[in-house]
């Protein structure tokens, strides 16, 4: 068994009297692809904010490669190698697509290498035609790709994707799934997604969250048969 890349121990956060995340113990192996599902308000995005230092946990710890990163600044965590595509894309609206990728690549690479990475990622996510366009004028679907490309250009070891398929057409969803599997050959990923079709395309191990806590963690096949999961989540979508 490889050492885990990411581990959370009893991770909790409270807003006033509401426990948004309650005692989450998560363990992710190197190059693992984990899907995180659960109904709205289950605490998935909040968990991502805790992992990236955008929120400080009330209690519990986060270990990255066995080192405690709880309470570190967001930029320090990013420098350790955790990248995130947020639920609502966080982009530089006045800058071009190319500049997004370049800024991500340039932090750890010399200028010429950053230029090369930018071209490579533009090709990979299919944003070549939009490269010189200002991001603020792009559609939601394209913005998703820009953010995904930006995260990839930074080449973090662990990539968190919060609803990467939202706002995409059927073909785009399939392409995103392909890309996720391709990324997974070299990177560990945690993917939050509501689109069950998408989850089925990529899922291996699935963690289900409900009301801030982990309800169950299993393979996709068994999750689909789990009656508790059906009750809280899948049942609403017409089941398996």
């Amino acid at each position: 068994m490889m050492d885990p890349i990411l581990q959370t121990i009893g991770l909790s956060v409270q807003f006033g009297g509401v426990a948004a995340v309650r005692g989450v113990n998560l363990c992710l192996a190197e190059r693992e692809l984990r899907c995180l599902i659960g109904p709205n308000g289950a605490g998935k995005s909040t968990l991502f904010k805790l992992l990236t230092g955008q929120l400080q946990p009330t209690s519990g710890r986060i270990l990255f490669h066995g080192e405690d990163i709880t309470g570190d600044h967001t930029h320090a965590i990013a420098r350790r190698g955790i990248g995130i595509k947020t639920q609502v894309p966080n982009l530089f609206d006045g800058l071009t697509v190319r500049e997004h990728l370049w800024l991500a690549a340039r932090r750890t690479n010399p200028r010429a290498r950053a230029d090369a990475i930018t071209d490579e990622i533009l090709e990979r996510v299919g944003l070549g035609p939009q490269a010189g366009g200002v991001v603020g004028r792009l559609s939601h679907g394209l913005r998703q790709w820009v953010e995904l490309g930006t995260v990839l250009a930074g080449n973090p070891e662990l990539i968190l994707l919060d609803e990467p398929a939202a706002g995409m057409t059927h073909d785009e969803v399939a392409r995103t799934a392909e890309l996720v599997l391709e990324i997974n050959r070299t990177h560990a990923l945690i993917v939050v997604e509501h689109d069950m079709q998408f989850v089925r395309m990529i899922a291996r191990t699935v963690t289900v969250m409900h009301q801030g806590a982990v309800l169950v963690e299993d393979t996709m096949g068994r999750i689909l048969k789990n009656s508790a999961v059906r009750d809280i989540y899948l049942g609403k979508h017409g089941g398996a």
Partner: protein
Amino acid sequence: MILRRVSPGVLVTAAMMVGVAVGAPLIVDQFQLLQLTVFASMCILALSLGVVWGYGGILCFGQSAFFGLGAYTYAVAAVNLGESTLAIVLSIVVPAVFAAALGYFMFYGRLSDVYLGVITLSVTLIFFNLTNSTAGDAYRIGSARLNGFNGMPSLPTFNVPGNPGRPLDPTETFCLVMALLLIVYVGLHALLASHFGRVVVAVRENETRCELLGYDVRRHKLLIFTLGGAIAGLAGSLFANWGAFVSPNVFSLTTTSQIIIWVIVGGLGTLVGPIIGCVAMQYLATELGTQQLANTSLIFGIIFLAFVLLVPRGIVPSLGALRARLFGARERQGAQARRA
């Protein structure tokens, strides 16, 4: 590498500055040359806010604090040293250090825009009141009397470095100020084209994304704010040298609001904009000062309101948008690709 990134517009502006520096002394009389000297000095001040606000996205209402600090530092140092070279250096260093200290508390304390505006404005008004109340023999630094609201007259003007007995004549001073303006303008463009400069702009666009990419937002804001303080300080020493005089007015609400008006009128997010805004408004102020029909401040207020309501982006960005509309979106996209 940097030359490749410099746009033709920057080269044209730089060439025009050189043209003015060389041509003006041949054409205009001494009085007009002195006018141009103070215009150019104020352009450097306008650039300092242009970069901090327009590119760094830091709403600094008190840029005059660093300007005034630079002017007073030059005055006190020049009187004490009897030589201008070190005084000029100090007039850059002291405001920069002060900006760094102030910025440290603001940015590492994670203050948001509105508070930055309030705090910076308060700081310059504190300096205004402080210098105003330094009348009397007790308030002196070395041999320099601060003189309160009367200001410090008869300051030593710039001299040839290392030769205090040889002051610069008005033409030499003008050429020096133009050279400094050129250096600041081109230097800022080079900086903004660099990795650091791109990150500063990215911070303005989205702080969260910058942090998620691993960039320390606080550090970048602090550095650009400090640089702005240093440039404003330099402008302060040029201003003090120009009139051989400095008074608490350099810290006043009028001074600080003027800088904001120059940047708003010229255009946020450009460097040539603040220069154009500064020259246009100063020219207007000079012309208005010769007539008695209407109050200058009143007219400035009307112009400011008109720009905020009708041309909120300022002259230069609005002209750019107009040109883009005339020549089509295709060319604009190409231009953006080149800029990236």
